[in-house]
């Protein structure tokens, strides 16, 4: 069979249309039954736990938890894909104007070093100087003569934004800092490299050496009492009034049962 | 060492043709060849003389090609090949561990049944062998290319297009190119494995003419399925059957008065 250019073009256009038809329903026609919770990978494991408990109490409501990142969660909220966005940092001013953030718990930000590092604590200023590149040797903070290798998170990470806000005071993280893409990767790297220093969720920092900050040892109790300075909120973000099913889930998370669950996982309750 | 005295051929010492050829160039002694467990050549004793054309005839599977490929160790390329016995070239065993196999193959050149031009220019095809042998001088290479092509009766056809791809030549020309390529190495022995099997009569005639001229300088071994070609283009003929050398002698004698009945049957076309 001979294919003239014109006919080939026609078939091509048809194929484009076909693909578009196949793709587009995915954009709009999602199932409306399950409550969709999308966002921060830091919050994801806790949200899954809460969803499991909630489903036991309310078997008629399905909760669908997805990761993707804090900002992705807010985008999903904006396009209507998600009922609840999760966010492991404070909302920006523009975001705060459009959405409502509900603090479900607080998480400490741990500054972590290698097990063999004799340093036990640093001040916030020292940490800032290390991450900005001003201090490059452990000697300068009273440690051994060893190069400091700061380990940061990727631009836009909730953990990074919280760290920038709480420690860096608008000073840029040095561009020479290593960048890892998850709490786990930071932990793995710091555990293997004697010169490394990193920051991560306190709730996930089991098995690694955490420094005291400004003389305060990080723990659930120092975070709760407000003594530990590096604390960030975990947020559920909603747009206007959520659907009743989503509201019931939020209520459950804020209830004493939900809060106890979060507390037992190393977070600090808010209610 | 006079290797000619140690020969013991099936039909007794054949009288070499021509003067000065009492010393055999190649002596095959009690040679047995295996592929895997199967013996494809059994107890071969054969002498090949300089300035003579030896034709090896016999039906398919008789071991002709295996013998030919053993003479410059091309069979070594096959993982399954094993042998016992000796093959002497000018008195030295070519299967000795000290043999430089590449040098051996330059002394004992092969033309295959199917043309095997390399995908390069005609000139480079012919200069390849000398270059491998270490010839770097451009003028010397030019000489070798020209003399090779002339000896193969190809020079007049290609002299103006030596830079063209050899693969564009006709089948007959390609086969003569392969012959020229071997001749450019100035070998001592020339092995031809059914060189005309795929060629038209005119190309075949040209190759046979080339062989007739070459015999004055080389020792030629020609494996052929074509008994008429053997009769036309050889001085001596050896007849192989099922891995055995049935008889060897002057071509005229083998064709007119074979010593073994099986030879006569084959030549007259009763089997094979």
């Amino acid at each position, binding site marked *: 069979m001979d294919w003239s250019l014109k006919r080939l073009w026609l078939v091509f256009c048809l194929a484009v249309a076909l693909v578009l038809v196949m793709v587009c329903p995915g954009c709009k026609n999602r199932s409306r039954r399950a409550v969709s919770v999308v966002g921060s990978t830091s919050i994801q494991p806790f949200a899954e736990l809460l969803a499991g408990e909630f489903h036991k109490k309310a078997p008629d409501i399905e909760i669908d938890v997805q990761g*993707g990142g804090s900002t992705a969660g807010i985008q999903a909220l904006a396009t209507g894909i998600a009922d609840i966005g999760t966010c492991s940092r404070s909302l920006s001013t523009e975001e705060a104007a459009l959405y409502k953030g509900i603090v479900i718990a607080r998480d400490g930000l741990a500054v972590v070093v290698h097990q063999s590092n004799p340093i036990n604590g640093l001040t916030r200023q020292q940490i800032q100087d290390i991450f900005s590149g001003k201090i490059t040797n452990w000697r300068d903070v009273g440690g051994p003569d060893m190069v400091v290798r700061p380990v940061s998170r990727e631009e836009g990470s909730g953990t990074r934004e919280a760290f920038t806000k709480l420690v860096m005071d608008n000073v840029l993280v040095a*561009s020479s800092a290593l960048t890892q893409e998850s709490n786990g990767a930071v932990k793995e790297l710091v555990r293997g490299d004697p010169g490394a220093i990193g920051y991560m969720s306190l709730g996930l920092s089991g098995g690694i050496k955490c420094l005291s900050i400004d003389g305060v040892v990080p723990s659930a109790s120092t975070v709760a009492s407000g003594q530990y300075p590096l604390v960030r909120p975990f947020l559920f973000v909603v747009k206007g009034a959520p659907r009743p099913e989503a509201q019931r889930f939020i209520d459950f998370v804020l209830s004493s049962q939900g809060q106890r669950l979060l507390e037992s996982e190393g977070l600090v309750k808010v209610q | 060492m006079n290797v000619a005295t140690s020969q013991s051929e099936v039909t007794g010492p054949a009288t070499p043709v021509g003067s000065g050829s009492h010393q055999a160039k190649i002596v095959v002694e009690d040679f047995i060849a295996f592929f895997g467990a199967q013996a494809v050549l059994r107890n071969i004793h054969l002498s090949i003389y300089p300035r003579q054309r030896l034709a090896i005839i016999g039906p398919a599977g008789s071991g002709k090609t295996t013998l030919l490929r053993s003479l410059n160790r091309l069979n070594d390329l096959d993982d399954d090949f094993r042998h016992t016995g000796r093959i002497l070239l000018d008195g030295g065993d070519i299967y000795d561990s000290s043999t430089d196999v590449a040098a051996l193959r330059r002394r004992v050149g092969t033309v295959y049944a199917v043309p095997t031009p390399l995908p390069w220019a005609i000139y480079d095809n012919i200069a390849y062998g000398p270059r491998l042998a270490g010839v770097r001088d451009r003028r010397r290479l030019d000489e070798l290319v020209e003399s090779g092509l002339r000896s193969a009766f190809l020079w007049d056809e290609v002299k103006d297009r030596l830079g063209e791809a050899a693969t564009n030549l006709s089948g007959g020309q390609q086969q003569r190119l392969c012959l020229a390529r071997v001749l450019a190495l100035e070998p001592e022995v020339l092995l031809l494995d059914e060189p005309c099997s795929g060629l038209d009569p005119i190309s075949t005639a040209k190759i046979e003419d080339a062989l007739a001229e070459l015999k004055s300088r080389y020792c030629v071994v020609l494996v052929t399925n074509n008994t008429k070609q053997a009769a036309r283009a050889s001085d001596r003929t050896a007849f192989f059957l099922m891995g055995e050398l049935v008889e060897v002698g002057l071509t005229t004698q083998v064709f007119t008065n074979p010593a073994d009945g099986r030879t006569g049957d084959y030549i007259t076309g009763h089997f094979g």
Partner: protein
Amino acid sequence: MKREKIISVVLAMVAMSGIAGLALITAYIFKEGLPIIVRVGLKDFLLSGDWHPLEGKFGIFSWIVGSLAVTLGAMIIGGLLGLSCAVVLTQFCPRRLVVVLKPAIELLAGIPSVVYGFMGVMILVPWIRQHLGGPGLSVLAAAVVLGIMVLPTVTSISMDALRAVPRSYRDGSIALGATGWQTTHMVILKAAKSGIMASLILGMGRAIGETMAVIMVAGNTLDLPHGILDPVRTLTSNIALEMSYASGDHRKALFATGVVLFVIIMILNSIALAVSSKRARKAGVR
């Protein structure tokens, strides 16, 4: 006859929807990415190393360099290893061993990239840190991991190319007194050149496009690397690292990074194709 026509139309539709999908993806990437390139300016976007998306600074120079450095390293390691494997397996190896080794090498291609990355993090990175210095997470680590990842692609396609060389070339060369090695490098590698080039192109495509393993072992710093022991960020790892958190212009800048990646791959492929077809013509094959 009629059925024939229907089948042919249906098949054309299927093939075309594949192309259409590709066209739509390409169009979308360009639609999302181009405006920000225009706004920032092509020169600043490509040649500035200043990347602070939250402050509106979008310069991807360091990652173009990073991607090229890591890919080059991977091709040196993986290309050489893969080609050597292919040569040994096709020219110098007993058939019985090839039957075992070829599938084994091809199996390497089936291992998920995260596994390579994990091996890199657990074994290679600490080794580099202890024996060569630096943070371990480095251009070298990424190049080695990618080199191993492209090895099966290069080996397997090169092997097919080497095997496709007519046996007569080998026989002809050997009969002229060439050794096995001389035959291989003067005749067989030359004859298989375009196929080998294709294997390198595909390997390069895999290397430059690989993301997961690179993120795990490259260190992903914002700085331009100054040596092979320095950490590095590539175009793909930058997209993957920041995609999930990016919004607004930041997100568009990541699409623009994708556009650049797209163009780089197109350019590399065209160069490689042009080179291989030119060589093939010169050698007188087709």
